[in-house]
């Protein structure tokens, strides 16, 4: 696609300006802006410690196991349910993986798929009374949570903490992608990370241009070309900056790779596929969805199945990070995941919420954590601040939505 061709296309485009776009999407952009503000604030109050490559890298690793849960929780809340069992299920699956590897001597490559499948199955069993009989998810998942917790205690009975020695397994939560070479001129920087960053920037520009062209061909309204360039520039700077920072400290971690994969897959499913539409329709009006040929039961199973998969993944990531399975693993994860989803704009009434929003929500909550830790703020105050932020975010969301 040549520049001349693009110019010709642009001449025909119907465009809209910045204010219009901002007005249409306040609530979507707000949390993103809030996240950046929070990050800048902590960078100042911690003399740059917060924004140091090491801390950012750590932050991404810490956010990992909550982020994948938040993705699943978003779907669950969209279809008007809740899942209180995710933390215990994650803990349980982590312990299972640990036992399978250390006591039964199974290979990590066998254990991982088994754990993920087991997560799906447990969640599906738990979801049957919800999907088939209409038992409230609140009750069913709380009960399942108790059972998973009991199972975790049983598994770790006697030994307590189970230490994991498997290198591959432990790399999931602590390792980084390998590098391809060293370029002395760039010092110790991680070259593959920089390369991936560059590829991501190019891909983003390329796909955005393609979407824009299709829209113009259909004679639809698009942001003005100047604005489009600005958008691209901003995205490129953000991606480039993150890649640059990470390359200064070991590069991209395997945790981050997993999170990006999960987000990409689920973002794609929810925004681009019929299945995604069906999920939103079931959340928006289950009766109308059913009469439109969508099986509410099937969607419920699919969503809880996905939640089970992600819970198991979260459990693996956490156990790997600690290099052990502990009796308290998973405690309170559900609160963090639910909070991330709500801060990210999910509505408890159903049918509203996005994957990216919830990830931003998770980042906001974890940034608060990390920043306040660096500032040496007592955990009592930290809880209060996080509670306040959660409720403020939801209040803001309600207000902007009402005004629309």
């Amino acid at each position, binding site marked *: 696609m040549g520049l001349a061709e693009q110019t010709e296309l642009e001449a025909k485009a119907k465009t809209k300006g910045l204010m219009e776009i901002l007005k249409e999407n306040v609530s979507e952009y707000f949390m993103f802006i809030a996240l950046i503000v929070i990050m800048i604030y902590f960078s100042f109050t911690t003399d740059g410690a917060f924004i140091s490559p090491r801390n950012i890298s750590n932050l991404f690793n810490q956010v990992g196991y909550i982020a994948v849960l938040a993705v699943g929780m978003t779907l669950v809340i969209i279809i008007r349910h809740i899942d209180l069992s995710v933390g215990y299920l994650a803990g349980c699956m982590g312990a299972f993986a640990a036992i399978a590897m250390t006591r039964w001597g199974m290979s990590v490559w066998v254990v991982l798929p088994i754990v993920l499948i087991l997560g799906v199955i447990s969640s599906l069993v738990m979801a049957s009374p919800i999907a088939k009989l209409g038992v409230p998810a609140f009750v069913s998942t709380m009960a399942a949570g108790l059972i998973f917790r009991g199972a975790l205690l049983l598994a770790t009975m006697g030994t307590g903490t189970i230490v994991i020695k498997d290198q591959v397994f432990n790399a999931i939560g602590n390792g980084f992608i390998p590098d391809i070479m060293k370029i002395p001129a760039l010092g110790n920087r991680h070259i593959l990370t920089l390369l991936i960053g560059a590829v991501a920037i190019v891909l983003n520009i390329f796909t955005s241009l393609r979407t824009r062209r*299709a*829209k113009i061909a*259909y004679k*639809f309204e698009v942001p003005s070309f100047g604005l489009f360039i600005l958008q691209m520039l901003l995205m490129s700077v953000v991606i480039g900056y993150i890649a640059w920072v990470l390359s200064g400290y070991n590069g991209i971690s395997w945790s981050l790779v997993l999170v990006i994969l999960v987000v990409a897959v689920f973002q794609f499913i929810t925004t*681009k*596929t*019929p299945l995604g*539409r*069906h999920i*939103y*329709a079931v959340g*928006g*009006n289950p*009766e*109308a*969805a*059913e*009469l*439109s*040929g*969508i*099986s509410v039961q099937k969607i419920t199973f699919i969503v809880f199945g996905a939640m089970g998969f992600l819970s198991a993944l979260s459990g693996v990531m956490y156990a790997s990070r600690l290099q052990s399975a502990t009796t308290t693993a998973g405690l309170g994860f559900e609160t963090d995941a639910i909070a991330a989803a709500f801060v990210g704009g999910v509505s408890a009434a159903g*049918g*509203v919420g996005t994957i990216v929003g919830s990830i931003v929500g998770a980042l906001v909550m974890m940034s608060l954590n990390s920043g306040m830790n660096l500032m040496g703020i007592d955990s009592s105050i930290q809880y209060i601040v996080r509670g306040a932020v959660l409720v403020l975010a939801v209040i803001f969301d309600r207000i902007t939505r009402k005004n*629309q």
Partner: protein
Amino acid sequence: MENPILEMKSITKEFPGVKALDNVTFSVKKGEIHCLVGENGAGKSTLMKVLSGVHPYGSYTGEIFVEGELQKYNNIRDSENAGIAIIYQELALIPELTIYENIFLGNEISNGVVIDSNETILQSKEILKKVGLDINPETKIKTLGVGQQQLVEIAKALKKEVKILILDEPTAALNENDSENLLELIKELKQQGVTSILISHKLKEVLAIADTVTVLRDGKTVTTLDAKADLVNENVLIKNMVGREIDNIYPERHGIEIGEEVLHLENWRAFAPGLGREILKGLDMSIHEGEIVGIAGLMGSGRTELAKSIFGNPDHYRIEGDVYIRGVKQNFKNPHDAIKAQLAYVTEDRKGNGLVLIQDVKRNISLANLKEIAKSGVIDENEEIVIANRYRSDLNIKTPTIEQKVRNLSGGNQQKVSLGKWLFVNPGLLILDEPTRGIDVGAKYEIYQIMNELVAKGMSIIMISSELPEVLGMSDRIYVMSAGKFTGEMPVEEASQEKIMELAVDY
């Protein structure tokens, strides 16, 4: 009767992208019945929501005077206290509560701590007497028919001193008998000095009951007429509403060939889930290509249940009997199976189970047929916009953009979205359940025309309707249903209103 009880002056109300009311002036005399008519989206409901404080003072421009005094309502409570009661287009009762609990909801009679049930029940009885409802106030709302629920709504409004009673399309969901009862009640209230404002698309009842009629079009007042004047008739109203004349409300169809049998029911029975009251009692039915079959009957005679039982049985009735589509026996497990067999069902309750209100117009239209716009599993959103825009213009859906949430559309335009959604499925057999409920005369005509075009292409249509003129005007053949049975079946040439009514109350 001379000085106005209500004056609304230069009312303008804007929503993002829509000027719903544009400098509207509206004046109501004390003690009269004032009807408000206009096309779907003309602004009738919005004007009444401004009056009742749903849209609070400050969110619109202009002034409201009640008995000469400037009013500034911040919420519904303020307007209620000023003696204005509104009954909305959609019923707002709580089904699980009893009649008396609903009537006094938000105004519970108590000794400060504990609710005084006996006193409440006693007072409820008095109020129910006023609306002519002889029924135990301890009955739960969900066991009542729509007509009775409507009366409870009015009773609820009347528990306080009411000067102005606003009713937004109260008879849309009522059958002829219930409608008549309701209109009688409004006349009676008039005797007691209550001023009423009534919104309706049923012009016959407007002319029968109104003292004055105001016509709105595109958010502006077109005219205010003395309904008792000789020159005022349906045609005059229509002309003012839509800006042109419509001579024949039911467009004619000619030379449509009746083809092979599409649907065949044999001894079709349905029982309620659980203990299983018999809802449908052995129905035999047959519909052919190119045919419009009307199903008449009273509310609660089982017509919607019949439609749902055929359309994949989403309410999980226990079913006996056979259904054949084009000669092949079917066993639909859910609506999805029915859609695959080219059935479509436009529900009577668009808000409850027809539309996803929090989603926009385009997503609602594409919902039942996403595979049509998906390429290798990915939805082509550009194609979706094209299709949504096509139905928007074909059906004349009034909305600023197809990105508008359906919740923000007027009632009639929501109905059109619901219809568009099922036309996009391109079915072989279309089941329409009260297709023109809440739809203005102009749009009705358009929908009838679309129905004619569809059958001309070989589609079959089942039309469930409580409006007898519509059944008689549009059907080729008519089934009359009563208490879960067909009490009659006849070609339209042999049908008449009297005959149908007789069969409809035949048990």
